[in-house]
């Protein structure tokens, strides 16, 4: 469609060929003609890496090391979802102190990932800078605070896991080695200071100007017995619908291949696009937040059901408070476990497991043979689940863009995509698609 003689049908395309300040490689196009959206695509062209294929015939003990490499930003999420799925297949349950350590290392990952996103990837959008480095020239204290918090999260992971990226200690049944109480307690001061800094972050994020835009979301989040959803859960909550048992999630949200993406798209079986991640967790579990997080949330007047994606930065900040405060509690209460892991004998079995990655629900399913070799693996990462929702948000956003200058409209789309904290390496399980680049 092009402009007709009378100039009535005007076509506009908003596009970015390479998204920046996101994890991995993607692009988007939003085409509007005569006021109607004719095309909205989040294009993921990250080269696929075929994890599910080469997990086959690996030993069950190697799975946790291998799946970490799907994503450098949330390796622990992959390790923990795999550990849950394998333990459920093998019929073993780590002891309570080991499960507490899992929550603790997972808090470290939420901190590291959320602090990275809030301060380095997302904040520059609100304050008008190309990156946190330029932002630091005018807002040095803010950027330094973000880096300090991120460092505390990484220090926690390093102590428990050996290193911040692709930690080596998580294994089936627990950890290869558990930290000493003394070493862990050395982190207390940093964690306590960080709880305060995270509270400050919520107050600051709540003052940021968000474009007005609201969506009637179907929120999806894990639910388990232990607190705010994190390292385990047996049920998946879907707003406005019946909960789904963990083992049924693969059928409840089938993944589909679309021509413009190397990531698979997941939707509910009836085609509904849904949202997972911080906003969905808060919607379903606000009453499970740590009191420190609940208090500051009330103080800034944040509602539990945030429907404006541009305000996800505030929700992430609330989760930062939660993660620091819970980590501090776990450190205080820590008793060294008798054994760092519970042994698991191989057997032919199938197991599903899910955890809440910083970006949302991460579901795994493994089929093992009697020797403990993987016969089949399936991984559904948060970003492939959010992808369809991002595209529908772009469609909904379109009418508000037409009156804006082109550059500003394009930036608003990019900012929306960034608000999801998409993790493109995760979403790409996976292959390279030829991208048709529409001439703009």
């Amino acid at each position, binding site marked *: 469609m092009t402009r007709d003689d009378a100039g009535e049908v005007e076509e506009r395309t908003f596009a970015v060929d*390479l998204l920046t300040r996101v994890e991995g490689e993607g692009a988007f196009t939003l085409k509007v003609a005569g006021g109607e959206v004719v095309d909205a695509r989040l294009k993921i062209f990250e080269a696929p890496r*075929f994890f599910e*294929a*080469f997990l086959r015939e690996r030993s069950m003990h190697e799975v946790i090391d291998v799946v970490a*490499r799907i994503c*450098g930003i949330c390796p622990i999420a992959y390790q923990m979802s795999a550990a849950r799925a394998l333990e459920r297949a093998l019929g073993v349950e780590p002891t309570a102190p080991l499960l507490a350590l899992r929550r603790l290392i997972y808090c470290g990952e939420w901190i590291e990932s959320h602090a990275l996103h809030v301060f380095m990837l997302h904040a520059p959008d609100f304050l008008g800078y190309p990156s946190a480095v330029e932002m630091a020239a005018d807002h040095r204290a803010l950027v330094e605070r973000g880096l300090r918090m991120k460092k505390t999260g990484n220090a926690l992971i390093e102590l428990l896991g050996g290193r911040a990226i*692709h930690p080596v200690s998580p294994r089936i049944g627990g950890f290869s080695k558990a930290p000493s109480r003394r070493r862990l307690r050395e982190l207390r001061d940093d964690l306590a200071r960080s709880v305060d800094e995270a509270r400050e972050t919520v107050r600051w994020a709540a003052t940021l100007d968000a474009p007005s835009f609201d969506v009637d979301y179907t929120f999806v989040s894990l639910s388990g017995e232990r607190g705010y959803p994190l390292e385990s859960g047996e049920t998946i909550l879907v707003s406005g619908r019946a909960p789904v048992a963990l083992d049924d999630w693969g059928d409840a949200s089938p993944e589909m*291949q679309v021509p413009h993406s190397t990531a698979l798209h997941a939707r509910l079986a009836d085609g509904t696009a849904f949202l997972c991640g911080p906003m969905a967790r808060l919607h379903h579990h606000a009453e499970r937040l740590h009191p420190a997080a609940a208090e500051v949330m009330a103080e800034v007047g944040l509602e539990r059901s945030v429907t404006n994606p541009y305000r996800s930065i505030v929700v992430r900040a609330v989760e930062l408070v939660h993660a620091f405060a819970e980590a501090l509690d776990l450190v205080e209460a820590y008793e060294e476990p008798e054994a760092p892991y519970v042994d698991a004998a191989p057997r032919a079995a199938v197991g599903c497991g899910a955890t809440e990655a910083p970006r949302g629900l991460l579901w795994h399913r493994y089929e093992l043979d009697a020797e403990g070799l993987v016969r089949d693996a399936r991984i559904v990462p948060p970003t492939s689940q959010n992808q369809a929702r991002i595209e529908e948000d772009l469609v909904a956003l379109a009418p508000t863009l037409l009156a804006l200058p082109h550059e500003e409209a394009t930036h608003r789309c990019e900012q929306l995509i960034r608000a999801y904290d998409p993790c493109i390496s995760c979403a790409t399980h996976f*292959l*390279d698609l030829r991208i048709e680049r529409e001439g703009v």
Partner: protein
Amino acid sequence: MASDAPAPGATGRPRLAVYKLASCDGCQLTLLDCEDELLHIADRVHVAHFTEMTSLSDTSEPFDVTLVEGSVTTAEQREHVRHIRASTKLLVTIGACATAGGVQALRNWRDASEMLRVVYARPEYIDALATSTPISDHVKVDFELRGCPIDKRQLLELLTALLTGRKPAIRDESVCMECKRAGNVCVMVARDEPCLGPITHAGCGALCPSYDRGCYGCFGPHEAANARALGTWLREAGAPAAEVKRRLRLFTGWSPAFREESERHDEG
């Protein structure tokens, strides 16, 4: 020798670029994980291209130093890496993907079209090469940093050395040496844990043995690695051929030393 330092760009600071190919982003994230140093680095170098960190991209003139993460797995990446080489004075490849093909090189032993079908129902949408290969298979590389992921201390040492024009102090030795310095008891002796430490390049600080498990070789072989001797030893200690092969074929399995030895245990 200051004369070896890269000539500064127009901003008066050396120009740094960061690119990725097929990878997990973990190695470039290592740079953002330098929380104490990041703002100082940004004061001293001009980050001219680094999509994960900044929306600015200044490709107007050649880069002084370019860090590349990831392996070559598509025809497009093969072109891209040539283009990167042509636009930089020094090319540094970072991590197991970039220096050895990474975990995705496991496809190199398999039928790639079968791999595609396992993940994608409609493989015709996808363009992927049959192999995942290190960048040095395609273009000249000036320096390689090992690891999956790279080690932060080694990265800082390398950047400092390149910026001041001296030789990076990165030792080519085995993980065993680091284990000894850390005062670890050998996991092979104490726990009967198979360990790739004797043939693996140092740099992690003997992480796995310090956490009571055997090294899984994510830094790849060191120069003088005798993979054959270790493979033989593991077999004699009772490990089945399939297991020895699997252990060698993980994050750096496509490195020549690990590849050759793993193929020796291929039972067909």
